[in-house]
């Protein structure tokens, strides 16, 4: 599958990564080559095969639904690029 410039821009938008025009051109070639290469999987007959969900057979572990950690906002916020009080701060989202 060859991807075009608009597709690269669309994926980059979905992935929230800004791309320059030069990058779009380079990525178009690289992504097309990778997607072409992975398409050799079409040779494999997977009719009736279940997709893998876990490599190790295991019963999902349950735990009690109760709070067992927390109560230290300063530790949580210690690495925040910007904070206001006990909150992470971001650019204004709504007027």
């Amino acid at each position, binding site marked *: 599958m060859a*991807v075009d410039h608009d*597709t*690269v821009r669309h*994926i*980059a*938008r*979905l*992935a*929230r*990564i*800004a*791309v320059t025009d030069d990058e779009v051109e380079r*990525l178009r070639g*690289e*992504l097309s*080559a*990778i*997607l072409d*290469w*992975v*398409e*050799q*999987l*079409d*040779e*494999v007959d*997977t009719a009736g*095969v*279940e*997709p*893998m*969900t*876990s*490599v*190790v057979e*295991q019963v*999902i*572990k349950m*735990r009690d639904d109760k709070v067992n950690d927390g109560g230290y906002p300063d*530790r*949580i916020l*210690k*690495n*925040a*690029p*910007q904070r206001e009080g006990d909150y*992470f701060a*971001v*650019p*204004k*989202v709504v007027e």
Partner: protein
Amino acid sequence: MAELTDLTVAEARERLKRREFSAVEYVDAHLAALDAAGALNLVATAAHDRARAMAEASDRHLAAGEPRPLEGIPIGVKDLFCTEGVETTASSRILRGFVPPYESTVTRNLWEDGAVLLAKLACDEFAMGSSNETAATGPVVNPWKRRDDPRPLVPGGSSGGSAAAVAARIAPAAIGTDTGGSIRQPAALTGTVGLKPTYGRCSRWGIVAFASSLDQAGPITRSVRDAAILLSAMASVDPKDTTSVDRPVPDYAAALTGDIRGLRVGIPKEYAIDGLAGDIDGLWESGAGWLAAAGAELREVSLPLTRHALPAYYIIAPAEASSNLARYDGVRYGLRVAGDDVTAMYEATRAQGFGDEVKRRALIGTYVLSAGYYDAYYLKAQKVRTLIKRDFDCAFEEVDVLLTPATPRAAFAPDEITDPLTMYLNDVFTVTVNMAGLPAIAVPAGLSADGLPLGLQLIGRPFDEETMLRAAEVLEQAAGFTARPDPWWVQG
């Protein structure tokens, strides 16, 4: 003092117990080796004060006659493990300055056993790479060079800093993570032992996630015995990781009996690929011969899906990575680049914070998970993965372990491989193991024609690291790999 850095973990812990030298002396010898090795560029974050304080605590335990299993052993830690109070960046610009307020389970297990944090070591950015050229701190350099060729070589990746540190006698042992070969491939390229445990054996809690269904932590050491010792310390059942498996952790070193009589060793014929270096093919034959001479029974087996594992991996791993990387958005930690609105802030932060390979994988992952393509790519790959696992299940009905080359080639020069697809082929023999969740180990077994280390790989049944390690030690003894790199990097 130089000889202290030559000791294996097994030797050092006995001599520390006998008080032949102190933990502070032992750790200082390694810190000095680290400081003299700037040319290898393998440090992500130094933590000398922390290392000395931990060594002093170890000396108190030793003085009291109460040594813990890894008392006073300095460990190099891949910068993917969160270490409380010590910067952790996954070798990415986007996490520069991030100081975790918590400790990963694997490193906590090591410290509780008396081990000492030597330093945080560089890796490929977010563990994505096979050459350790993509770290934000610049490329890591392999201690090994080709005979009569002064050009620097890559150490492999992504745990390249960890492997280089162990090969260069800077650390007696280091830990890494392996998503598609990131422990075993750099181990093979640096003449060290690299062990990837069964998926679920080591907790993933507190490890920067790359591809959650494939990631496993493991040791890099200079002997199979040391790898066994480290794994017993690293592994645990962890309520904080629901994929950590409820099985008691064995004393893996106790499994090293040297007796493999009657062991059935499978030789998968599909691993004889075009493009396999001739000296690796020859070494593979030698390895099979050594195991047979020790009483093992060789059997050819077939793993028909082998060549489809790599393309399936390059759908599944980027898909999981694109999800895991969503958290790096400039809000809670790491880099923030200003934008006009919140979306522009996300886009600018991620554009500046991620390197080229990380962006490439995030975009591939986003594409294969996007509406209209999910079934054709992601679901197809997960079905192929079921068949890959089935191949191994069938093989393990006939044999106890599998013997393969670890990599298709020896170490290469920086910029020698610039095409992403060619780079991905470095993991052709290791990635199958992650897809099936199996344990595997790379053991240094010989030198290439131009004097570089080459490794063989043993693959075991799920949670049967013991049989695999027993065979690996026999292989190690037979290979008698004693070569070491000339210490050209040592300064001052």
